[in-house]
């Protein structure tokens, strides 16, 4: 497995002024289901931070807590604080947050099915006030990243294929020209070639425009290649964090998330019996 040698951005979250810091938050759904049990993390200005963890660990919940979409799911941040660019944001509405430059790409695509692909992209520019020309040129930019979208621009998003919808959702967020993007599983359902491209786009936006990313991702391999810093979430708690490089060297991470325990990549066929999951917390 060859890899594009990605130089991790040297991350020093303690020094750089964090663009986002989440302090010890607790999230409860439906008044009874406690999901996050004290999660803290910081995203430095211009950084890419990966949020890793198994299904149900609470990655999506964390992102939604930041973007304030939780309330729409009858979830509540009951403890802790969230600071975005020096401002407490728990009380803001999602739309105020978008205006301040923080946008989320939701898991599971969530395209507007009855709008065409192009209209979907344009809704991303809803909060922008910098004129039609600028929006037009950004639209072209998105199309240049995702030529497939250009081909399908006039079809209803509801009829496009899974991958096309995923591109549409990411493109839509880019249209907002955000300072920070919360990306929830961007690689899901995308062809391998595109996965690489998406991460390249992430890097470009990050490098050229200084956009920060908080990225929940199952494809640990990819995520740790592009991110500067990573947090591993389990059962609603951060169980491990560190520089991407350090994490990649961590034996447990290798074993469970990278699949290269014992130095060699395992074949999926050879995984004989179901292993008991080793956990940092039981």
């Amino acid at each position: 497995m060859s890899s594009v040698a990605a130089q991790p951005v040297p991350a020093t979250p303690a020094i750089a002024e964090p663009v986002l810091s989440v302090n010890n938050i607790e999230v409860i759904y439906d008044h009874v289901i406690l999901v996050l049990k004290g999660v803290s993390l910081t995203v430095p200005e211009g950084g890419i931070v990966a949020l890793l963890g198994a299904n149900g660990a609470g990655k999506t919940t964390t992102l939604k807590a930041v973007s304030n979409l939780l309330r729409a799911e009858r979830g509540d941040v009951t403890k802790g604080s969230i600071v975005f660019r020096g401002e407490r944001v728990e009380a803001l509405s999602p739309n105020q947050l978008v205006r301040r430059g923080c946008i989320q790409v939701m898991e599971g695509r969530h395209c507007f099915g009855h709008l065409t692909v192009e209209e979907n992209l344009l809704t991303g520019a809803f909060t922008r006030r910098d004129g039609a020309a600028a929006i037009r040129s950004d639209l072209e930019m998105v199309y240049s990243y995702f030529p497939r979208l250009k081909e399908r621009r006039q079809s209803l998003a509801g009829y496009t294929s899974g991958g096309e919808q995923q591109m549409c959702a990411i493109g839509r967020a880019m249209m907002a020209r955000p300072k920070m993007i919360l990306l929830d599983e961007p690689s899901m359902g995308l062809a391998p070639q595109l996965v690489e491209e998406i991460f390249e786009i992430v890097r470009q936006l990050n490098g050229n425009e200084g956009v920060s990313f908080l990225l929940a991702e199952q494809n640990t391999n990819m995520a740790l290649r592009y991110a500067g810093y990573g947090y591993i979430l389990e059962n609603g708690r951060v169980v491990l964090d560190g520089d991407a490089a350090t994490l990649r060297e961590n034996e447990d991470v290798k074993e469970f998330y990278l699949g290269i325990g014992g130095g060699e990549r395992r074949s999926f066929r050879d995984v004989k019996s179901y292993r008991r999951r080793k956990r940092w917390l039981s």
Partner: protein
Amino acid sequence: MLYREAGQFKTSYEADQAVFPILQDRIGVMVILAVAVAIPFFASNFVLASIMIPFLIFALATIGLNVLTGYAGQLSLGTGAFMGVGAYSCYKLTTFFPDVNIIVLVLLSGLFSAGIGMVFGLPSLRIKGLYLAVTTLAAQFFLEWCFIRIPWLYNYNHSGAIEVPERTGFGGVVLTGPAATPFVRYFVVLAIVVAMTIIVKNILRGRIGRSWMMIRDMDIAAELIGVRPLVAKLSAFAVSSYICGVAGAMMVFFWLGAAEASAFAISLSFQILFMAILGGLGSLIGCFFGSAFIWALPVVLRLVLPSVGIQIGAETVEHLTQMIIGALIILFLIVEPHGLARLWQIAKEKLRVWPFPYA
């Protein structure tokens, strides 16, 4: 600490699939049934005749609608008319078979509305969601028109209404008609409602009920799994209309005593729909909650309001009642959007984890 399932192990799938697998729930249901049976011995005739009997009948109609809308996902605004079909067929049956026990006739009359329900259910194969409302609305208004325009249905009465004749059964007990006591009528209604609820519950937890819910949740996937949409939807229409028909017959025979076509107008359809939604779509216990909320609460409010406040006019009581009900509906939805049944469930979950606030 009272509501704990800890320590209650189920050793067979039969036990696990019981309607109330938890002991406390079984006790609760027994208590409710006992209270239901005991009520007539304490309550006044007014409470029986104007609160309990209509409450039970509406609950049954709501169950009927819930089968169609809550479980099979087919929106219906024609409940009132289907109830009407039950009532008018029961009326005709009593004229044709004056000697048959009225309860048998009430149960038979549901078959007619089941048949008519299926006819109006046919377009549901092609038309979905809110758009389906048009077929049921067509049913509603067309049937209502028939109730007025086909004098044969009301035996050519000049009043244009159907009137409940006196019928006795079980060794001379007066079951219907003005001479039937609320006491007797209540027990008949209670028995029918309980029996029908059990039957519906049985259907719902088996293959047929599951196929309805599959169609509701994701009709495409259901079809790919092997559910025939035609069979599933029409059976839902049939069962639902049957229950509504029986409820309609009971409404006239055990409660109102006489009815014009306007008794089955669209407002009745909406009333039942409100009960179903507010109680919680897709929940049987919710039907009872919804019926209690929309029927019984206003009655109680109308009684209570004048006695607490200063003397106010009857219409002001009505206005206040409406405003209170409206506000309560909104309040409940904000607290728990999925209806009273869900609120109940959350309360139970809270009890389960008590004294901790969450699990």
